[in-house]
């Protein structure tokens, strides 16, 4: 129980660090602060997708419902973080490029991930029988998972093919000095721990809700 409060304090320090300790990147002013929250969200979105795909493979191999339960829980959390990453991303884009969305490669890949999650849950809601739902969504998440690496090569081409003159992209690779990167990676670790804690809770709640409790006990 104590390590949870330790984690609580750790995250407070990260937030303090993000706002007070870390310097701002040149040319971006205070908006760089969002970096410490936007990028971990995007990372968790991908991590959750990976976790979900791994549990899907386990489900197909072992046909145990618990794996499907874990896969869908991870996907649900992943969806939340994908939405968060998309919103924070477009707010930041608004500050820097004065437009909420212009298919910058990073924005497009997060958006495609959002499409995959949306399709995954659309499929889950279209199937009513439990085992079939588990089986079909497991297969879909594996196929989607295989497609993602291709997107890394392919997505930069969207910008070229849609509006050939390359967009001015000051953000590029933000060069971080040591103070900034410590807070940045601290935030990464913090968010990953947060994700696994939320995943643990979600799985327990889902498992427990399968038991039928008589009103008495």
């Amino acid at each position, binding site marked *: 129980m104590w390590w*949870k*409060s330790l984690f*609580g*304090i750790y*995250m*407070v320090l990260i*937030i*303090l660090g*993000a*706002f*007070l300790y870390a310097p701002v990147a040149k040319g971006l002013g*205070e908006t760089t*602060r969002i970096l410490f929250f936007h990028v971990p969200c995007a990372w968790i979105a991908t991590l959750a997708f990976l976790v979900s795909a791994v549990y899907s493979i386990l489900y197909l191999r072992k046909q145990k419902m618990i794996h499907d339960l874990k896969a869908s829980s991870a996907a649900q959390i992943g969806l939340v973080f994908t939405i968060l990453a998309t919103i924070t991303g477009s707010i930041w884009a608004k500050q820097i490029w004065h437009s909420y969305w212009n298919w910058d490669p990073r924005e497009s890949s997060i958006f495609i991930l959002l499409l995959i999650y949306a399709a995954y849950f659309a499929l889950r809601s279209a199937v009513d029988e439990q085992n079939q739902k588990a089986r079909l969504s497991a297969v879909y998440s594996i196929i989607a998972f295989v497609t993602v690496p291709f997107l890394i090569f392919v997505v930069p081409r969207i910008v070229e093919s849609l509006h050939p003159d390359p967009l001015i992209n000051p953000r590029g690779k933000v060069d971080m000095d040591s103070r900034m990167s410590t807070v940045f990676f601290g935030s990464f670790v913090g968010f990953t721990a947060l994700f696994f*804690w*939320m995943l643990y*809770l979600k799985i*327990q*709640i889902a498992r*427990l809700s399968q*038991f039928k409790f008589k009103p008495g*006990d």
Partner: protein
Amino acid sequence: MKVLISMMQTVVDTVSNAMGSSQLDQTSSSDIYVVLTITLIVWCGLFFYLVYLDRQVKKVKDRVEIKEN
């Protein structure tokens, strides 16, 4: 648990008035503390909700374990 909250409160206050007093004139920089406190509040809310859930889950799990074996 109560002790924890008060401790965090003091951390925030000391930090903000330490920085605030020296830079009161630059209004733009004082805004950053507004964002900071909001973020802290959001985080504390989320954190306590997770702890609350954690305790509830533990309670229900123990009850289920008792019934199962």
